């Protein structure tokens, strides 16, 4: 029942000076000073352009953006429930496809995009996103990951960095570390489990420059269901001065704690290859955030060792936690 549609052939943006000037997500949103998730909103809307429909799952980027019946959105946008990111995109894509096939609206490529936070996409809604990635609809789900339920004032999620302080994981006199879960590897998990999904990527909102915009365009151009996981430093919850929002993202990538890559038709392409370029110590990233102020050296060493394992011992470094030596039982 698929309908062949014209494709918007996005060109790669090569220089910052070539980035589109027009905004499709504009000023007048109640996000925090220095909000990197707002950068994700701005950049995917800019990269996708006007022939786009968007749903936003409950979370910061719902509540902060559209406070009190006002909107910063220029492209059509609709709220969806916390765990409904994937299914909202399927619903829109299916509706548009049926209406176009039946001749009730003109045939054209309309980008269908959902954004959901780490709580919505990585935890509650992961089943729905998995379902979406099994379809043949053209849709893009963006998981904007600020590593907490930031809208409800910073509670731990499955994507919170080990050791971080949140209101659900406060350091105490008996337990220094309450956040004892290792960050969920959402993008790779989805890529591994959905072999017909042609494009999964991770990105940081502003580092390297243009990277996220180009990944958005690549996802929309490749078509089918696609997924991008973005890494969004959160000045409020991570507790750093908003001034350093870009820098924190860069440090996260350069320390290797958040690997940047694309998986295109099963092929892993590193955006920032920490093996070749070298990694800065994770300490340089951790020490700049108030949420890690309670960590002691052994905690930092543990995080470093986990990151080292990720890059040195995984079969697909930074992506998939399998280790080589395909042994046969018995």
């Amino acid at each position, binding site marked *: 029942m698929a309908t062949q549609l014209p494709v918007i052939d996005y060109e790669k943006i*090569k220089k*910052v*000076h070539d*980035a589109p*000037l*027009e*905004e*499709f*997500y*504009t*000023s*007048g*949103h*109640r*996000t*925090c*000073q*220095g*909000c*990197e998730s*707002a*950068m994700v909103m701005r950049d995917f809307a800019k990269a996708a352009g*006007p022939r786009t429909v968007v749903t936003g799952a409950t979370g*910061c980027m719902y*509540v*902060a953006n559209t*406070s*009190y*019946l*006002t*909107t*910063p*959105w*220029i*492209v*059509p*946008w609709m709220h969806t429930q916390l765990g409904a990111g994937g299914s909202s995109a399927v619903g829109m894509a299916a509706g548009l496809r049926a209406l176009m096939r039946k001749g009730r609206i003109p045939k054209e490529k309309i980008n269908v995009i959902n954004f959901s936070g780490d709580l919505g996409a990585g935890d509650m809604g992961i089943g729905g996103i998995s379902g979406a990635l099994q379809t043949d609809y053209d849709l893009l789900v963006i998981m904007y990951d600020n590593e907490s339920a930031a*809208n*409800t*004032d*910073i509670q731990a999620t499955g994507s919170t960095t080990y050791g971080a*302080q949140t209101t659900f994981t406060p350091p105490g006199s008996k337990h220094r570390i309450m956040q004892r879960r290792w960050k969920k590897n959402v993008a790779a998990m989805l890529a591994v489990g959905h072999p017909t999904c042609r494009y999964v990527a991770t990105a940081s909102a*502003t580092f390297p*420059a243009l990277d996220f915009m180009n990944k958005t365009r690549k996802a929309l151009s490749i078509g089918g269901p696609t997924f991008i996981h973005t890494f969004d430093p959160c*000045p*409020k919850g991570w*507790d*750093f*001065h*908003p*001034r*350093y*929002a*870009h*820098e924190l993202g860069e440090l996260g990538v350069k320390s290797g704690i958040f690997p940047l890559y694309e998986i295109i038709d099963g092929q892993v392409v590193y955006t920032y290859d920490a093996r070749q370029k070298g990694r800065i110590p994770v300490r340089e990233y951790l*020490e*700049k*955030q*108030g949420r890690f*102020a309670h960590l002691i050296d052994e905690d930092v060493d543990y995080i470093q060792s986990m990151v080292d394992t990720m890059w040195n011992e995984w079969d697909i470094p930074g992506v998939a936690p399998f280790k080589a030596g395909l042994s046969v039982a018995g």
Partner: protein
Amino acid sequence: MIKRVEVNYRGIFQKTLGKYIGGDIVQIASRMGKVAFSNGRYSDSPERNGIPCKYFAFVSPDLSEEELEAECGAKLDIDEADVSVVVDDTMVKGVEPWGWHGVRAINEKLREKGCLLVTSQHSHDQLLTFIPKQPFSWRLATVEGPASLAGLWVYKDDLTRERVLGALAAVDPGIISIEAVESYLLEKTKDKHRAEAARASYDATLRNMRVVKAGEGAEWHHEIPRLPTWKEFESGGVVVPAVPRGFTMGPRGQSRNERFLRGTTKSHRPVVRFDLCIKCTLCWYDCPDECFDPTDDGLYDVNYEVCVGCHKCAEVCPVPECIVMVDELKFDNNDSPWEHHKRDPQGYIKWAEEKKGLERIHYPHVTGTGMEIREGKFVPPKPDKGGPAAGAKA
């Protein structure tokens, strides 16, 4: 009788401070045998960094707990304030906490003879150039010092809390007395210097309180939006028009959400030396609030109506002294700086340098761990005023 106090604070940065002050008032008043409670303005929640928020405390010497709660509890906002505390003085320019709320005067809730108590390094007269006039007389007092900004996890213990309590006792002893403040602090913290800080602030406030006469103060131009009745937007319901698509080069060329500007979120604004700009685009590219307007000459105007003062542009700008964050109270309008620069390039440089001064505030990464004042410098304009286009980095 009821005494009502509101604490106007910056979201997240002063969340703990606002809550502490509200809670302290309740505990001190209780020790004095009064009935009191405190709460936050729920509509401010979820708080965002920098957004103007309010915390309240209500005190009565004669009402029962139930009567006080009935009068002051379960309400969105305070009816009137005997004291409006402002812990970041840039909020005297007005506060717009959320959409359809409008920019509200900082002394909107202040009653006749009430006191606006501001943490500030500015003089009363300077503050009064921003605070709107009232038809009655009121009082203005300051607690001298910079705004105490902290983070969600790190409370900045710089005695602002104690000093505000001391000053509060000075401006309205009917709420809490200085003796009660002192004994509370001593008993609670065993730290003598906290009580001393409160007392010193009490004394200083008594000396520098200023009566503001009826009609004295700034003109106020902001309108409060009228919320439509249910019938007036019935056909839309939850469906509202998007911001209309619109972009042209130049100042105010991008369409924006007109129901919520949120420029009152900022304590500092970026001042741009356009003549030093290398047109790298990074200020525009990295701005999370879409407040830079591209211009035909490759520069980026700043729309101060919507800039929230995050400092990010100043951080990513590769040119020293090109973008510098400056105290918001040094500005009395949101005019386009680029137009000023185009109109009068030399005059603009002079203006910008005057605003910048030579003190540069430097914050460490973790909020609440202090700030450092570094010396800035004057960079003379280049012969080619537009700056070299070459050298721009992608």
